[in-house]
């Protein structure tokens, strides 16, 4: 027996337990677990999406570089494409991280290890969402680095770019958490991803400026919150955007607050987690 065990047996039980209670939350460990989880399968979670984005860049820039003019020809189409692809990667991977982690834990039953400890709804929220943000931004950074070789661009307003990357990844991390809580099976989560997240990101101006669209589709694009994330992030690179970056920031900040409040309420109620 080690000393710790001897010490254990010497104390009355209540004191024993209380003595070992630390005065810090376990959310940092849950965050560490979330990071370790995607890091252990980084071929699938980081390298694969970087490669996918690179293929988009190669194909779209090859086909459209000489045919599409954006922002009145002030920037090359390939350069225009890069921030969009980076942000799309950030958003899709942030969503994928929190949603897949939660649904896997629910289906395999190991979510119980997170539900038994004294983690508050805010602890769960913070760990899953920050984990999703780290994965999204890591993939986005990877995409940015590999695409530099095709069009060496740098953000002219880096704080704007950073603000949109952080808020965008947070929104998608929260949405992923919400979808993971709601879904009972992988099929439902795939439907959420394929019929909502992917169309909204593809139709948000990643591959085009909305000014090239007919008026009806331009108007419709303004109802797509993903458009503001992409457009604002692109402003951070070129100082050019389809709408005022302040408006975009306000739209996604409000969306982020509303979704976060809703998700915290859902976690507090224990909906589909604590029966």
């Amino acid at each position: 027996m080690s000393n710790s065990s001897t010490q254990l047996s010497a104390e009355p039980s209540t004191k024993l337990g209380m003595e070992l209670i630390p005065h810090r939350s376990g959310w940092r460990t849950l965050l560490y677990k979330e990071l370790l989880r995607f890091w252990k399968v980084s071929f699938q979670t980081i390298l694969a999406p970087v490669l996918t984005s690179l293929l988009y860049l190669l194909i779209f820039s090859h086909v459209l570089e000489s045919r599409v003019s954006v922002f009145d020809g002030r920037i090359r189409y390939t350069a225009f494409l890069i921030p969009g692809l980076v942000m799309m990667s950030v958003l899709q991977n942030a969503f994928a991280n929190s949603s897949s982690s939660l649904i896997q834990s629910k289906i395999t039953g190991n979510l119980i290890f997170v539900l038994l400890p004294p983690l508050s709804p805010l602890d769960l929220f913070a760990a899953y969402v920050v984990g999703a943000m780290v994965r999204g931004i890591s993939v986005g950074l990877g995409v940015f680095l590999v695409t530099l070789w095709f069009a060496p661009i740098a953000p002219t307003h880096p704080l704007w770019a950073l603000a949109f990357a952080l808020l965008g990844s947070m929104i998608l991390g929260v949405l992923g958490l919400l979808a993971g809580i709601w879904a009972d099976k992988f099929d439902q989560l795939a439907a959420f991803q394929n019929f909502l997240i992917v169309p909204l990101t593809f139709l948000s101006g990643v591959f085009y400026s909305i000014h090239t669209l007919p008026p009806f589709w331009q108007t419709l694009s303004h109802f797509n919150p993903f458009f503001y994330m992409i457009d604002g992030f692109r402003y951070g690179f070129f100082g050019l955007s389809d709408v005022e970056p302040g408006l975009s920031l306000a739209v996604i900040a409000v969306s982020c607050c509303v979704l976060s409040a809703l998700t915290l309420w859902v976690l507090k109620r224990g909906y589909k987690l604590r029966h």
Partner: protein
Amino acid sequence: MGAAVEIVDVARRFGAVQALSGVDLMVEEGEFFGLLGPNGAGKTTLISIVAGLTRADRGTARVLGHDVVTDYRRARRLLGVVPQELVFDPFFTVRETLRIQAGYFGLSNNDAWIDEILHHLDLASKADANMRALSGGMKRRVLVGQALVHKPPVIVLDEPTAGVDVELRQSLWGFIRKLNRDGHTIILTTHYLEEAEALCGRIAMLKAGKVVALDTTQNLLSSFAGLTVRLTAAALPDVWRERVLRHEGASYLLSLTSYAELESLLSALREHGVAIAELALQEADLEQVFLRIMKRTG
């Protein structure tokens, strides 16, 4: 000694099923307490309510005086639960699993205790193996380790030895007994009634969401003192049918109040011309007590 776990008027319904109907129960600090009942009796629901995994429709549950809903942080820190389902996280090794679980409780740098757990659960050689590579019995022992990793004063074991071989079961019980001697309160549910009889000082029996018996193991055994007969025969006279505790094919388990009743049984069998293929007398054990209580409260 105060109450380690106090359950007052707890009820829970799942759709049409009333899983718990106003359960009252108090487990004293330092007890080795058994919670028995047939499948669907409400044992796991009750444990889930204490652990905060399920919410009660009414009533309260406290762990060492801390309400599991309003003061859940303290209540959960004081409780370790070994779940019934064999679940694990396939991304991690055994040691990572235990470290992460300790971290959820805000503990770090407790590798000495983790090493001790690994030693007692005979998992030291598997510390760096991925959870997927373990056998079912090993995974079950990791679950026990995860419940103990924050040294909780109250430990709930929901069917902890299912799928664990006899030798390891003995070493596991040796470890749990030591924890009980060290002052930890143990609450055990098991289908191995001989384990409950050997380990538990007090036992509650649940049936259809209600406590139908609650006493010390010794009192339960003595209050239902009597004999049982294992009889293998083609048929059983009708007057003896109400004494049947269990019946499978031609095998009957019958209760007798005294040895004198054995002669009555044999006479009845002779009168009806029933040939006895096999007959064995047994003293009452917890299994017989359990069967009688379940039958009595049928």
